Each structure stands twice: as structure tokens, then as C-alpha cells.
């Protein structure tokens, strides 16, 4: 099974009426990568990862994950196969304690893998996750009362609790302070030791720090793909996105 591609899309399309949000994307992702997807606003980045996670249904084309065609699978089944998605707009259980947010995810993973779901075990695992994302001291707080940066971390923690093969982070650093961003980068590097990461990100410093490879989307298509150096040097990317200096 060595030649099975981790994640692959073939001519993936998503059209909303006349709007071609994603318009024929052939994309591959190798296991263990940290891949960033960048592109101007409206390039189709969020729609593209929604097609991967199953939140949005593809108009045409295929998504293959670990050798299986998952294009028509509902979102929850893709999650069970190891694709976790964290939301661009923080989407947590605001009225529940922080630890309960993570516990819901832990319970999902344990019961889907047929393991015991005793209250004590779920709690212990949830505590471990909170320690990893640095939220232990807020365990009993209402999630909605956390500072914004902490809510973002909780969002990631809920993804982590699923122990996914692939963690999709949709603009995870949006709205974070500089010091929070740097902590966040450390966390992502640590997560990447056990999971493949697909990251939509506007902050180019974060992209350059984390990503092994970068995919640039523009108008629903892949404009360029390569190492951070390649992308920085790529003329077309500069035109479309980074903005060319008038030298």
C-alpha cells in the first residue's frame, strides 16, 4: 500500500449557480506534510477544503482519501475516516464548559473506534488534549467566556481530540495577537508529528514558517504549487496575490 496517495482530488468542481467557486482542481497531499493553501479573497480556498471535509457537496470530480473515493460520503463519515476540520469562524459549544467541548469530540472518537466510553476515560483524555493546547486552567469555564485566542485554541483542541489523520485548519490565526500566533505555530509543528496538516492562511509569516509546500489558488483553480521559495519567486503568484513591487 506504499503507493496509495494520502489525499487526492481529480478535476474537483463546485459551482454555485454561475459562480465557479472551485473549478477543476487536481490536488495531491502526501502523508506527514504541512501544506498551506493561499490565494486572494474569493479564490475558493474555504470552498475547496469544505469539499474535502464534506461540508459542501462537489458539483463534479472526485476526492480520494487513503485510496478510497469519499466524494459522496457525508461529512461525519469522513471525520470517522480521519479528516478533521476546524472552522474559520470559531464554532464551539459556547454554553458548555471548555472540557465538555473536548469531551464531545473524545467520545466521538472512542465510540467510533469501538472503545469503551466510560465517563472517567473520556474526561482523562479530554484533560490531556486541554493540556496540549494549553487550556487546562480553563477546563471548567464556559467556553463562550474564553478570550478569542483561547476559543481558537479550543477549536483546534476539538479537532485534535479526534486524533485525525488529516487536520484541516481554516484560517486558524485570524484575529490572534503576535505572541499567540507564535505559540500557535509551535503547536501546529507539534501536531504535525502525528498528523498531516492542511492550512488555509492569510498571514504569510505563518505560511513561510510552517508550510513545507504551498498551493496557490486563484479563481477556483490552482495557480501554482511548490516550496515556499518557489512560490515567493513565482511571477504569476506575485501578480495575482502577493503584489509586485514597482522596482
Amino acid at each position, binding site marked *: 500500500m506504499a503507493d496509495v496517495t494520502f489525499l487526492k482530488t481529480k478535476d474537483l468542481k463546485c459551482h454555485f449557480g454561475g459562480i465557479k467557486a472551485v473549478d477543476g482542481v487536481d490536488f495531491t497531499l502526501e502523508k506527514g506534510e504541512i501544506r498551506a493553501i493561499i490565494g486572494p479573497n474569493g479564490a475558493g480556498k474555504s470552498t475547496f477544503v469544505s469539499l474535502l471535509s464534506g461540508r459542501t457537496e462537489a458539483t463534479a470530480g472526485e476526492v480520494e482519501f487513503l485510496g478510497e473515493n469519499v466524494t459522496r460520503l457525508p461529512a*461525519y463519515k469522513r471525520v*470517522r475516516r480521519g479528516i478533521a476540520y476546524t472552522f474559520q469562524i470559531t464554532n464551539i459549544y459556547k454554553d458548555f464548559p471548555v472540557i465538555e467541548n473536548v469531551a464531545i469530540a473524545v*467520545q466521538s472518537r472512542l465510540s467510533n473506534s469501538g472503545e469503551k466510553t466510560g465517563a472517567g476515560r473520556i474526561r482523562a483524555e479530554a484533560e490531556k488534549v486541554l493540556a496540549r493546547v494549553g487550556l487546562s486552567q480553563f477546563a471548567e469555564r464556559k467556553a463562550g467566556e474564553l478570550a478569542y485566542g483561547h476559543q481558537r485554541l479550543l477549536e483546534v483542541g476539538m479537532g485534535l481530540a479526534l486524533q485525525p489523520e488529516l487536520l484541516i485548519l481554516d484560517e486558524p490565526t485570524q484575529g490572534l495577537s503576535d505572541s499567540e500566533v507564535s505559540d500557535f505555530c509551535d503547536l501546529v509543528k507539534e501536531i504535525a508529528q502525528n498528523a498531516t496538516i492542511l492550512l488555509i492562511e492569510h498571514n504569510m509569516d505563518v505560511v513561510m514558517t510552517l508550510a513545507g509546500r504551498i498551493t496557490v489558488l486563484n479563481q477556483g483553480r490552482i495557480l501554482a504549487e511548490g516550496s515556499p521559495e518557489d512560490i515567493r519567486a513565482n511571477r504569476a503568484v506575485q501578480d495575482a496575490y502577493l503584489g509586485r513591487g514597482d522596482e
Partner: protein
Amino acid sequence: MGAGMMKSLILHLAVLVLLFLLQFVISDYAILTLTRMMVLGIFASGFNILFGYTGLLSLGHAMFFGAGVYAAGLPIYHFGWSVPLAFVFAIFMSFVAAVIIGVIALRTVRDSFMILTLMLAQAGYLAILYFNRETGGSEGLTMPQASRSFDFLGLTIDLTDAATRYNIAVLLLAITIVVSFILIQGRYGRLFNAIRENEARTEMLGYNVLTAKLFSFTVSGTIAGMAGAAYAILFGYIGATFAGIQYSIEALLFTLLGGAGTLLGPLLGSILMTTLIDRLSEVTSAYFLFLGLILIALTLWFPKGLLGTIKEKWLPWLT
């Protein structure tokens, strides 16, 4: 078992024991009223699994109460079935009805779900009127004298005896509370709550939300149906009113007043609200007007109800 869960369990058992003991100190009339309140409390408890814990507002739960009433009453009346058999059959039929209606209604969400459950319940109500030769229509049917007492496990159960009826109601209430307690404290409780709070997120955590909702709907409808069957058997009368919209609304009212998402809330709500309805109907025939006003007031200013508020302010461990 955590300390909070233990406290909650003790409280619920204490309430059940208290209800059992009450029969030795209250008047015969109070025993009769309280029996009725407990059966309606079971009905509202079933409704509450769906509404309070899972966040789905059905406006047609009388269809399950009615299904229980008729699935128990009709075989007794027409075929002379024994009471225990008819009771078990009615629970089974309510279960079947809940699965079928759930599969249909859960294709919709929010407002459409409310309207669809309301419509399906109206269809059930009208069907009872339409088949009035068999069902007795709005006049209803009185159960034959033979069904007012039966032998069960060597005991002769006399349903004309108020204390017997009372104890059956306590027993069924206890079963409902215990089953609900186990369900809500377990992993389904967490899942139901997660769906109520944020359905989209729950799906993206790998849960099959639709199946979970169907499960909640089925448990809810089956408990409501059991209450209906108990009502028909205990009081020996079946009628179309039991499947009518006021029963759907009353389940909602009881639950809102007592506290949605608390196990004892529906029972408390049913006790208080039934008392109020009885008092109001003595002085005015327009008591529905007052129920409507109460419903509006509760939704606007007191959405958590009595036990919900107590849970939020003082007893966070309350189930």
C-alpha cells in the same frame, strides 16, 4: 459515578419515594388528581427527551399519546384483549409510529419540523374522527367492565381502586425517570445536548446527527405512547381529545414551566399546570386563553422554567 450524579440520583429517588408515600396522607380526590398528573408527567417527560435535551420542538406529540391511548383501548374494546397484553402492544405500536413519523419529520428542521409534526398530529386526530364507528370519535369509548380488573403474576389488579391506579402510575413514572436518567447520564445524553447546542459542529465531530435525532425522537414518542396507554387503561376511557392539539401544547407547557432539560421539570410542570387548569376551568370556559398567555410569558421571561432556573443558579448537578 461522580458526586453530582450521585446527588442527582438520590434526589430523583427521594421524589419517587415521596410520591409513593403521599398516598397515605392525601385525600381520595387528591389521589385521583395526582394519578392523572403523574401520567401526564410521563407524557411530558417523553416530550422533554426530544425538546429539552435534543432541542427539537415537536408540536404534535399528542399523536403519540393518542397512539398509545387507541392502541391500548381499541383491542380491549373490540377484541377483549387482556390489559397487560394491550399495554405492551400499545407501547410497541407507539414505538413503530415514532420511527415512521421520525423518519418523515426529521427530514425537516426548525419551523418546518414544528409545522410538519403539527400537521401529522392533526391528520391522526382527524383519522380518529373519520373512523368514528371504530374509535367512537369525539364521544369516545368507555372500556368494558371486564377490563377494569385483571390478573397479573397471581395478583388481582382492580383498576377501579384509586390506590391501585395511583401505585401503577408511580411505578410507570419511576420506570420513566430511571430509564431517562440512565439515557441522559450516558453518552447519548452528551450527544443529544451537543446536537441541541450546535448541530453543525456535532456532525463535524463525526457523529451521525440524523440517526441520533431519530433515536431521541423514538424514545420520546414511545414514552409518550406509554403514557397514553396507561391513561386509557387506568381511567377506562378513550377519546379523540387525547390526540388533539391541546395535548401537544400541554406537553410543551408542562415542560416549559417545570424546566426543559431537567428530568423532574415535566412532572412538576404537569402538577402545577393541571392544578391551574382545573381551577381556571371552574371559573371560566376560556381557560385556553390563559394558557396561551402563560405560554407567551414563559417563553419571553422565564425560558428555563422552574427547575431549569434552579439548576442554573444553585444546583448545577441536577440532571
